[in-house]
């Protein structure tokens, strides 16, 4: 029955034909271009390297990147319900699972695009103002700047990936874009508080909490994570939560009666 890629193209069309999307991408590019300029103005004595600048920029702009991806994810399913177009979408010869999958793929593609744009613009702008070599305070001794930065961005992306999964699930369950954006961003900003409140060093069970593992960047410097966890353990915890989020989305979307 038709071509599954067609469905993904449809979802992409619904993302990129909206002015909103281009405003978001524009803001993201602008912030990544302007931050290295600001760093260069406060940088006294040429202490900052190219990769320092990229990571500092990303540490600010990745929040934007996550927020925008969450907005797109939250609107993906909830938008169809609030527009009423879900009724037209679900009466095509496609199972609901495939329709939801096409939506999820489009959301992930958007988050990847945001991340690539962020990295590309941040690197380009930083390379104008900063030199590549030199000792860095952020990067451990004997490590290549580019490889470290790549791993740093990868950790940020894992964080974003989980937040987007939460937003996508909430969007499917509550069919309300605002609620899912709000809750997902609340989790994004409050997870640090949760992680210190339920510190795995103090409570044994807390090491199974999602919040303790969403930020993997600690493993870049140390082998041991919160509560003595290893990277493998953290990834396993994240994987379990991810599967649960996806299963809930699929189940709810599949069972739901579409009424006015």
């Amino acid at each position, binding site marked *: 029955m038709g071509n599954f890629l*067609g469905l993904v193209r449809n979802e992409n069309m619904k993302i990129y034909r909206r002015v909103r999307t281009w405003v978001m991408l524009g803001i993201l590019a602008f912030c990544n271009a302007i931050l290295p300029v600001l760093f260069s103005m406060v940088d006294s004595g040429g202490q900052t390297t190219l990769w320092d600048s990229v990571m500092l920029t990303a540490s600010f702009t990745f929040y934007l990147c996550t927020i925008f991806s969450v907005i797109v994810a939250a609107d993906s399913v909830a938008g169809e319900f609030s527009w009423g*177009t879900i009724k037209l979408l679900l009466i095509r010869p496609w199972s609901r699972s495939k329709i939801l999958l096409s939506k999820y793929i489009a959301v992930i593609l958007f988050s990847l695009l945001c991340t690539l744009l962020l990295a590309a613009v941040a690197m380009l702008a930083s390379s104008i103002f900063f030199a590549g070599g030199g000792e860095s305070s952020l990067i451990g001794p004997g490590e290549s700047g580019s490889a470290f930065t790549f791993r740093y961005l990868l950790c940020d992306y894992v964080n974003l990936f989980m937040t987007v999964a939460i937003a996508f699930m909430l969007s499917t369950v509550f069919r309300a874009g605002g609620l899912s954006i709000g809750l997902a961003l609340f989790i994004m900003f409050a997870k640090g508080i949760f992680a210190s409140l339920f510190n795995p060093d103090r409570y044994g069970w807390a090491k199974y909490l999602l919040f303790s593992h969403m930020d993997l960047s600690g493993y870049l410097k140390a082998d041991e994570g919160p509560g003595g966890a290893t990277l493998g353990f953290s990834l396993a915890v994240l994987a379990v939560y991810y599967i649960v989020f996806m299963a809930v989305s699929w189940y709810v979307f599949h069972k739901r009666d579409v009424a006015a």
Partner: protein
Amino acid sequence: MQHEPVVRLEGVTKKVGSRTLVENVTLDIPPGQVFGFLGPNGAGKTTTIRMMVGLTSISQGDINICGYSIKEHFEKAVANVGAIVENPEMYKFLTGYQNLRHFARMMKGIDAKRIEEVVRLVGLGNRIHDKVRTYSLGMRQRLGVAQAILHRPRLLILDEPTNGLDPQGIRELRDYLRHLCRDEGTTVFVSSHLLSEMELMCDSVAIIQNGRLIDVRSLRNGNESKAEAAETGFTVDEPERALAVLEGGSREGNVITLKLARDEIPEINARLVQAGIKVYGIQTVTRSLEDQFLEMTGGDPIG
């Protein structure tokens, strides 16, 4: 094959919590007809349609479309269906054409030529390249019909299609539903609470009330050929004398009304004329669908 029903509802029931929205509806929709689905607001029309297109699960019973169960073979069954459920909501930030492209990609074998053909059929013309945001309700309705017939479905389901349309729009809709039915052999299933509309549009109607199917009837059985007695009115100059001559009937102004079979009408006319009464007009008072409908559902409040 030809007379196999396009849609077969078998004991379809929908329960939500303790409420029964649709109860044990069994209905066959024959091919090549405009089939009406009539009922007051809240009777279960939209719920039934939602079940037919798989938007809502079926509590009991099953619905077969072109031989495929909507429960077991959703994708095959729904491939034969085009529908507008309630209002024709479209992606407002896309143009009409992009909306059609969107739905065309979801189905097999729809090329640019077919899209153009459909745009011409519903008469959207150049406005198809404007954003749907700028469309009037009538234009959205046209776009709604366009997306529904894009894949040449064997069954077209329209839920309250005349809602919010002006008389001109209603007329056009009626015309191209007839065209689809006659020239492309599409079976059209239309729901409405507008009785007079249904009378003009449909070949048959099913009447539903409080979730139960209460009647299915044909509207195209030439009334005259029936031997059934119908109310017949005679407009005369001397109604009092006419009543005496005919020994029966009821009087309303200058009109005498009697219940007569078709063959009796000339006889009665002759008797009146022989008695020297002038007959100005003879009229069979056909009860409109509306009267029949109100009679059937009369006084029963929405449950």
